[in-house]
């Protein structure tokens, strides 16, 4: 145990965590020459396609120093704010953290947030200044920022390039020297913390744990404390690039267990594993519950797939503890689930993963934040869905969540950012120059305004320079109206939104225009209307399709046309009948695509 080191790599997005992990794995010969590739720990297709880490990934390395053999358990974490729950759980399995800072960007929002998460757990922080190979690296300046932030000495900061490998050997040395070995009593009753889990179609449900005290043997009868369920530890082992079975594991170890767990609901991250024969007296303090920021409905494209969708979401939840859901139903879409997400990227990833990993074709509805509705009778109703709003005559007033948003940017973009924030109902609370050309702006603004496209807009007006972080501040009274969309006179609940009164006309008009673009022409005219209550505020018409036939169908036209029609048919299968109108999946997210 004294030769074990458990540490995670944390940073703002794109500061080079996964690339640094590559170098550490390379230097310790954990990954063979043949298996080496960039960001090898980003093993999901989605991660590789998007070039970002979505899941934390634990891996064990062997390392020899000064005649001693060490076991180093590394956990690479995501940097995007939507996946911060992954970071907080990884931290609970570690004694140390490499805080990576990109020398060309300096400290950014998630550098700070993730640092605080690590400090809350008393982790030893090793600051790493990365990307020093780059010409635009501001080594001294960013080191000053780091010293200011964590109060360390300049010598404590390790300069490195995850790209060239410079300084990486020193990082390994520092991990051994500075991160404390795990404390915990291998002879005490077993206490292991479940920090993640996954459904594997071949092997069933796998839980990842960190043993705090005691030890576990293959074949032991173990118990999950929160659920009270008992299992045989059929297989336990450590996480290398593949899973490597072990006979015994003990305090300080990080590993996995396969134990014939039947249903997804039996595994809860934060639960404690103990032995049935010799149980521990108390469970490890688990994790704080996640607070979803954004809610949206997820419905099967084919209504018959409802139960399968439930099973799929449950399995996905095993591997994404930040996803919450409950059943709901919609007049337009039938039975589905109201899901809570940590942000829009999170929502998009969930939809993608349902499609790729579970082959579930789903419709995601317009996302919204959580509102508080107060009735005239004085009751408070938490509203996750515009259609859950009480009737107008019973509604006293609505409150919406507000955030404190921190934006750090080059000062030349200050004007643009101000304009954007004010357009989004933001109020400037503070303005601080961090350096002569870097400014930090603090706004108070409604969360609902940033849900849709705020971040993309911010990035584009600041040429990608601005960083953005926020936390929920509380609720404030709001002048919101419910905007309904009607297709051929029928209100489509899945397209309703709650929106500030001042924005409603403009918004309604844009929604109608966008839907006209997204809904294909059909056999009848389709009227698209936006309404507040009974008042129609905007209208578009999609003219009926009068003719759908190719003029020429000779040699080459045949295969060309066949391919086109095949594609068309696929698209059609992904449409949902609402009244007599076929609505494509994409239309339900029209609101996200308004400009």
């Amino acid at each position, binding site marked *: 145990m004294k030769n074990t080191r458990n540490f995670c790599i944390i940073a703002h997005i794109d500061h080079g965590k996964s690339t640094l992990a590559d170098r550490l794995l390379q230097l310790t010969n954990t990954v063979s020459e043949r298996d080496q590739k960039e960001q090898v720990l980003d093993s999901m297709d989605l991660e590789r396609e998007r070039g970002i880490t979505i899941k934390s990934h634990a891996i064990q390395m062997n390392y020899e120093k000064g005649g001693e053999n060490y076991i180093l358990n590394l956990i690479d974490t995501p940097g995007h704010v939507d996946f911060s729950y992954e970071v907080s759980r990884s931290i609970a399995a570690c004694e140390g953290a490499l805080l990576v800072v990109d020398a060309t960007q300096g400290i950014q929002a998630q550098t700070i947030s993730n640092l605080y998460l690590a400090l809350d757990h008393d982790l030893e922080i090793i600051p790493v200044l990365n990307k020093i190979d780059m010409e635009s690296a501001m080594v001294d300046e960013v080191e000053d920022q780091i010293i200011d932030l964590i109060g360390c000495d300049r010598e404590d900061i390790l300069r490195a390039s995850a790209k060239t490998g410079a300084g990486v050997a020193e990082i390994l040395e520092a991990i051994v020297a500075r991160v404390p070995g795990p404390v915990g009593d291998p002879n005490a009753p077993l206490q292991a913390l479940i920090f993640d889990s996954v459904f594997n179609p071949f092997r069933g449900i796998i839980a990842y744990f960190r043993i705090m005290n005691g030890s576990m043997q293959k074949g032991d009868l173990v118990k999950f404390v929160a659920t009270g369920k008992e299992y045989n530890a059929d297989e336990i082992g450590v996480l290398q690039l593949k899973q490597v079975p072990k006979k015994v594991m003990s305090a300080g170890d990080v590993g996995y267990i396969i134990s014939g767990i039947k249903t997804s609901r039996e595994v809860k991250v934060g639960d404690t594993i103990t032995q049935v024969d010799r149980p521990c007296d108390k469970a490890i303090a688990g994790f704080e519950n996640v607070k979803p920021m954004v809610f949206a409905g997820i419905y099967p494209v084919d209504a018959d797939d409802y139960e399968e969708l439930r099973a799929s979401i449950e399995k996905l939840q095993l591997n994404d503890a930040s996803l919450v859901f409950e059943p709901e139903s919609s007049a337009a879409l039938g039975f589905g689930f109201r899901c809570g997400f940590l942000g829009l990227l999170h929502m998009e990833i969930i939809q993608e993963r349902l499609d790729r990993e579970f082959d579930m074709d789903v419709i995601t509805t317009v996302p919204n934040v959580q509102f508080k509705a107060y009735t005239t009778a004085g009751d408070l109703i938490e509203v996750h869905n515009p259609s859950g709003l009480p009737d107008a005559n019973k509604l006293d007033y609505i409150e919406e969540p507000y955030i404190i948003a921190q934006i750090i940017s080059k000062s030349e973009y200050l004007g643009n950012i101000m304009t954007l924030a004010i357009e989004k109902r933001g109020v400037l609370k503070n303005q601080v120059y961090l350096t002569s050309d870097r400014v930090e702006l603090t706004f108070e603004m409604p969360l609902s305004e940033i849900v849709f496209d705020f971040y993309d807009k911010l990035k584009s007006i600041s040429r990608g320079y601005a960083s953005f972080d926020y936390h929920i501040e509380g609720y404030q009274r709001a002048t919101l109206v419910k905007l309904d969309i009607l297709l051929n006179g029928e209100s489509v609940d899945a397209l309703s939104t709650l929106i500030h009164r001042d924005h409603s006309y403009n918004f309604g008009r844009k929604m109608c225009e966008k839907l006209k673009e997204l809904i294909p022409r059909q056999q009848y005219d389709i009227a698209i209307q936006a309404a507040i209550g009974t008042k129609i505020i905007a209208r578009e018409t999609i003219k009926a*399709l*009068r*003719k*759908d*036939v*190719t*003029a*020429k*169908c*000779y*040699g*080459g036209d*045949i*295969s060309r*046309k*066949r391919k086109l*029609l*095949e594609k*068309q*048919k696929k698209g*059609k*299968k992904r449409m949902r009948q609402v009244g007599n109108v076929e609505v494509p999946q994409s239309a339900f997210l029209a609101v996200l695509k308004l400009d």
Partner: protein
Amino acid sequence: MAGIYLHIPFCKQKCHYCNFFSIASLKQKPDFLNALKREIAIQKAYLKNEGVQTIYFGGGTPSMLEKAELNSIMEELHKHYNIQPDVEITLEANPDDLSREKLKIFAQSAINRLSIGIQSFFDDDLNYLNRVHSADHAKTVIDNALDAGFENLTIDLIYGIPTLTDKKWQQNIDYFLASGIKHLSAYALTVEPRTALAHLINKGKLKAVDEQQSVRHFEMLMQSMEAAGFVHYEISNFAKPGHYSKHNSLYWIGGNYLGLGPSAHSYNGISRQWNVSHLTKYINEAGQSESVFEKEELTLDQRYDEYVMTSLRTSWGCDLEHIQNAFGKRYSQYCLSQAQAFLREAKIEQRENRLFLTQKGKLFADGIAAELFID
């Protein structure tokens, strides 16, 4: 039954709506002809010595070929393929190429069927389309072709042109009917992406095509042609009984054909292949390198899809028994069950074991075919 298609990729000028592969310069014609002959020789095994009953010179504008050029191509074909005595040899021609002399020459050559790109008998429509010829000349050419002895004659007309009023369209149909020609191909003007027409409409320089008008024109056409005793034997083709185009029919009954020349497509019942749409590449690679074409093997599902799509467009209809024999019972049952909704809407009708598009259904041939496709 098998056929050969030859793509002659030259035109005097580009028509606005054209998305065929052709270029408006004759500079590479000699090189092209050499390459074509090389390809004719090298592909001789493609049709497995099956009897060739139709040869089609398309383009482009094959009427720009000289007599000697045509003859040398024919000679090369005879050398390598099993050409049947009753072969139909069609030449696509533009009116501007068809002087009396040229018509006489073609009449004396192996060509026994002429397909003339008339498009309209009105100058403003021809202008809109950027055609080379005039309306007057179009009329003269028809008389001259008949005079020259071309029994087997067909013309192309285009409807749905914004300048073509309903009245003018009826006049075009009537002019055709009065001419005594026994075959007509009539196409709805289609704005293909990346054509001059698409660009000019986008820029507001030409009037946009109106779908309603096109629908009306199609309905007028069906009515007049039927009344005059023509068989609507494919969505865009009409003929007096016994005067169907062998070549076109070949495509729709799933026959084998070999396409030669740039952008030409071939089909042998299992795979399709198509040549590069690039003249210099074609000239350099034809007969020398496999990279001149791309190839695609068709799955059973894809072959079924193609059969449904093409057969539904024809007066022979979609034969459920053929589907059962060629693809299996699962396919014929699926086809019939998918057709139910259209039978109810009177877009498809069933006679014995065949499905046919009704007049109403013909307007929606694509969407209907897609519904009958395998999922």
